[in-house]
């Protein structure tokens, strides 16, 4: 049907400084646009997204009584919202707008100015054709459930959870392991201040346990995520720890009582350097203070012939229940913070360094435990054969900056290597050699720490280590590990005999990152870390509304950065919660009942069960709230009886025609 007020289009071409103007002839583009049907105003401006830029639009709407706006600038993912708001302020329905991406998808990816300009023209023509058919739309509102899920109980999750809880929001903190604390709990000292990790972490851990607004679900995993921003339904699988968290008083007598008098099982928390019993608590300050039974190694589970002395020891409390089974729990939250952390690179994947082959080659985390006073060696640096090392080599960038393994820099290895160098020297007085590609100390107090180590006469050899070998070239090397490296500063190949080799292993995405990613429907960057919505402007947001990122799951970072990011994620969540609602995009689909023939083709298209078949009228109907606006049913409807706001057939046809109409 004919529009009562004829289409009056304003087209705005952005220079984006020189980002666009250097490759696209913006002047020619604006002139071209001016001649297109329905275009009343066509301007070019340095920065359309700036206030003066937006004012241009607002004033033209008023002065030239425009009713459609096209902006040719950057990606709609960056500024579509900005300009829609400008329309709104200008008194126009924000959806009378279409954005043309001539930066990311033209000026930045093409070199030939003529061709880039031609392409930009096509795209603008398409947008003009399209926008003419736009209709006014209203955004819906969805109430935000105030509770928050924080996934991962490392320092990131802990800090985010506490921040939210202190702001009065209820938080579900879900952790895979039997205790929270994550990697940080394994560290001895933290760089560059060398304050003890436990001293700063454990108080936060117990704060989590005692906080009235935090429900702590350890030894648990998220298995299902339903719903959408503001209204997520999360299914949590709770592994049985065989000891009732509510009944257990944390006396740990059951550990003493275990029929295993000596601990026999390699202890995960100590990277297998120590031993634990089948019934154990990961580490003394673990939260919750509740032991867990490992069915793999518990005699009762294996043979059923145990005296069950642990149950005796527990006595009246009856906290131990060997029949316990996994349970699932449904929780409802409005927002989610992913703080699932990282995985340390497996040093065995760099075989040249002999990890797993030579007993005295250690991965950094093992040494972290070793130098830790509460670690397996009570803080002593002792080799597997009981010797104290006279010389120690620390190899940087193992599983980082390496074509064969991971290309990225793990950011923390330089600093923790310096830290370990300092601690090892402190504990053993040994000669310590650092083998590095570059020393990267870009943090507060980092460079100073590096300087301090130089004065401690720690050796720094610049060169990528070729191999660690036990090949003895001359007798002085007997019984030692030899580090072969090209000293790129001295300019020759050196053989450095040492007793102990420490591999500064890098940080990787967790093995289960892909599953988590799919559960929460977010993207991963090429190396497998979770992808933020925008590296600069939305570093803790994801492309799924209401899901935020904190800590190393988004990329390697140290504790200060992690805590800062966790705070930011909490703030983003709070902003949503306190707004009380989110506005939803109106690009939903709807059935035109007069045309629908009730063939039910669409019903099986929708993964969200938004489409139901209404028996009384023999037609299908779409629930607008459940519809997420993918448009699959629209394409599938054989009689064209389903339409999608903002992606109407006619609008897309117009765009195609616009692109292909030869100028």
């Amino acid at each position, binding site marked *: 049907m004919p529009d009562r007020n004829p289409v009056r289009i304003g087209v705005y071409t952005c220079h984006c400084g020189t980002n666009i103007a250097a490759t696209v002839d913006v002047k020619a583009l604006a002139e071209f646009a001016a001649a297109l049907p329905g275009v009343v105003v066509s301007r070019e401006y340095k920065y359309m997204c700036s206030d003066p830029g937006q004012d241009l639009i607002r004033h033209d709407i008023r002065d030239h009584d425009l009713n459609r706006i096209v902006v040719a600038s950057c990606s709609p993912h960056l500024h579509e919202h900005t300009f829609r708001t400008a329309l709104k302020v200008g008194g126009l329905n924000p959806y009378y707008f279409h954005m043309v991406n001539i930066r990311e998808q033209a000026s930045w990816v093409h070199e030939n100015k003529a061709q880039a300009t031609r392409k930009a023209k096509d795209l603008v023509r398409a947008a003009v054709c399209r926008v003419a058919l736009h209709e006014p739309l209203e955004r819906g509102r969805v109430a935000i459930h105030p509770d928050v899920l924080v996934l991962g109980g490392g320092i990131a999750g802990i800090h985010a959870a506490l921040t939210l809880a202190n702001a009065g929001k209820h938080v579900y903190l879900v952790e895979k392991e039997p205790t929270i604390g994550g990697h940080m709990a394994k560290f001895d000292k933290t760089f560059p201040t060398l304050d003890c990790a436990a001293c700063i972490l454990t108080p936060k851990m117990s704060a989590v346990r005692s906080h009235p607004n935090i429900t702590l679900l350890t030894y648990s995993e998220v298995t299902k995520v339903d719903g959408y921003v503001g209204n997520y339904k999360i299914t949590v699988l709770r592994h049985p720890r065989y000891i009732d968290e509510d009944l257990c008083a944390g006396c740990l007598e059951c550990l003493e009582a275990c029929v295993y008098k000596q601990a026999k099982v390699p202890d995960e928390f100590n990277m297998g350097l120590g031993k634990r019993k089948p019934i154990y608590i990961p580490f003394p300050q673990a939260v919750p203070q509740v032991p867990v039974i490992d069915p793999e190694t518990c005699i009762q589970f294996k043979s059923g012939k145990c005296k069950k002395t642990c149950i005796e020891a527990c006595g009246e409390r009856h906290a131990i229940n060997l029949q316990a089974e996994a349970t699932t729990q449904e929780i409802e939250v409005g927002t989610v913070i992913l703080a699932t952390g990282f995985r340390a690179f497996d040093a065995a994947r760099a075989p040249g360094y002999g990890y797993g082959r030579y007993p005295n080659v250690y991965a950094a985390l093992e040494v972290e435990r070793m130098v830790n006073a509460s670690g397996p060696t009570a803080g002593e640096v002792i080799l597997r054969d009981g010797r104290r090392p006279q010389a120690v080599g620390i190899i940087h960038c193992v599983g980082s900056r390496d074509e064969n393994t991971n290309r990225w820099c793990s950011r923390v290895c330089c600093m923790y290597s310096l830290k370990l160098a300092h601690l090892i020297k402190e504990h053993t007085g040994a000669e310590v050699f650092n083998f590095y590609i570059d020393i990267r100390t870009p943090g507060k107090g980092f460079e100073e720490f590096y300087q301090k180590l130089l004065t401690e006469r720690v050796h720094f050899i610049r060169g990528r280590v070729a191999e660690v070998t036990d090949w003895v070239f001359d007798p002085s090397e007997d019984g030692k590990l030899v580090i072969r490296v090209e000293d790129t500063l001295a300019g020759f190949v050196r053989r450095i005999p040492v007793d102990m080799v420490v591999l500064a292993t890098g940080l990787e995405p967790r093995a289960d990152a892909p599953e988590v990613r799919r559960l929460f429907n977010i993207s991963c960057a090429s190396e497998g870390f979770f992808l933020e919505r925008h590296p600069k402007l939305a570093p803790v947001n994801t492309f799924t509304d209401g899901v935020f990122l904190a800590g190393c799951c988004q990329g390697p970072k140290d504790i200060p950065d992690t805590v800062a990011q966790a705070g930011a994620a909490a703030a983003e969540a709070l902003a949503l919660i306190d707004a009380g609602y989110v506005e939803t995009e109106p690009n939903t689909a709807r059935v035109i009942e007069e*045309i629908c*023939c009730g063939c039910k083709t669409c019903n099986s298209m929708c993964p969200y069960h938004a489409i139901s078949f209404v028996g009384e009228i023999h037609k299908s109907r779409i629930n607008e709230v459940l519809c997420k606006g993918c448009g699959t049913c629209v394409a599938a409807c054989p009689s064209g009886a389903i339409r999608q706001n903002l992606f109407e*057939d006619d609008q897309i046809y117009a765009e195609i025609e616009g692109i292909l109409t030869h100028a």
Partner: protein
Amino acid sequence: MKPKVAFYWCASCGGCEEAILDLAEDILNVVSAVDIVFWPVALDFKEKDVEAMADGAIEVALVNGAIRSAHQLQMAQLVRRKSRILVAFGACAQLGGIPGLANLTTTGEILHEVYGDGTRPQLEFQHDGQALNLPKLFESVYPLDRMIPVDYYVPGCPPSPRIVADALRVLLSDPLPDPGSVLAPDRALCDECPRKDSHDPELKIDRYYRVQERVLDTGTCILAQGVPCLGPATRAGCGARCISGNMPCTGCFGPSGRVRDYGGKALCSLASIISGNDAGAIDPILDGLADPVGTFYRYSLPSSFLQRKQGE
């Protein structure tokens, strides 16, 4: 005096003419109601008789068949000139119809198929001073409205008696429907299909069968039985005659109002509802849809976006 009515046929099989006769006794009402001034298949009028008429003298002309030859075009243009209302009657006139499938080949190929390398009919031939002419065959088949302005469409191959009767009634009465409209309900066939409620909403096809491969249950949705039925994509109005004959709809009534390319839309829909999420699982199911063009464009190739086979 009675309104003048003309019937003419272009590239068609004659089934549309039959459809008029299928009105049975109603035909008498028609004949008594109108004054038929031109109907080559039934009455002896000549081209010159039509030329003799004043422009617009004919109230309603029902033209069936597609345009394939210069003569058909010339006649269509003549009838158009003489008629106030011109109706594209039947699938061929509306969409190109079965003859439109010739757009999968070229005229050259067709002539070769028929005459081989032997003598071919000449466009012009001199016989003792007399010039004999044959109409030129076009490279492609065209639906009527690509050649002359068309006021209304009556779908079907052939149009069902009910549709024809309704159409005539509407056309000879006031007020006339919006110009360009198709004189059939703007809804798909399922709407009037007796089997529409026979299958549950979660329709998933694990295999497509050709109709001869399957003994079809007479109560259940044919598509749900794995036989491609184009009812969901095809305009209603035929009274689901094929379905009642336990045969799938092949789409002769063409698309409903919001669909631009009948075959593309039908294909899009039938492909969407199969199971299988990778090529390995999908392809065997699609193998059941032999001859996609013949299946989805049986009546509408010339009116599709692509109109004919591409390339030379």
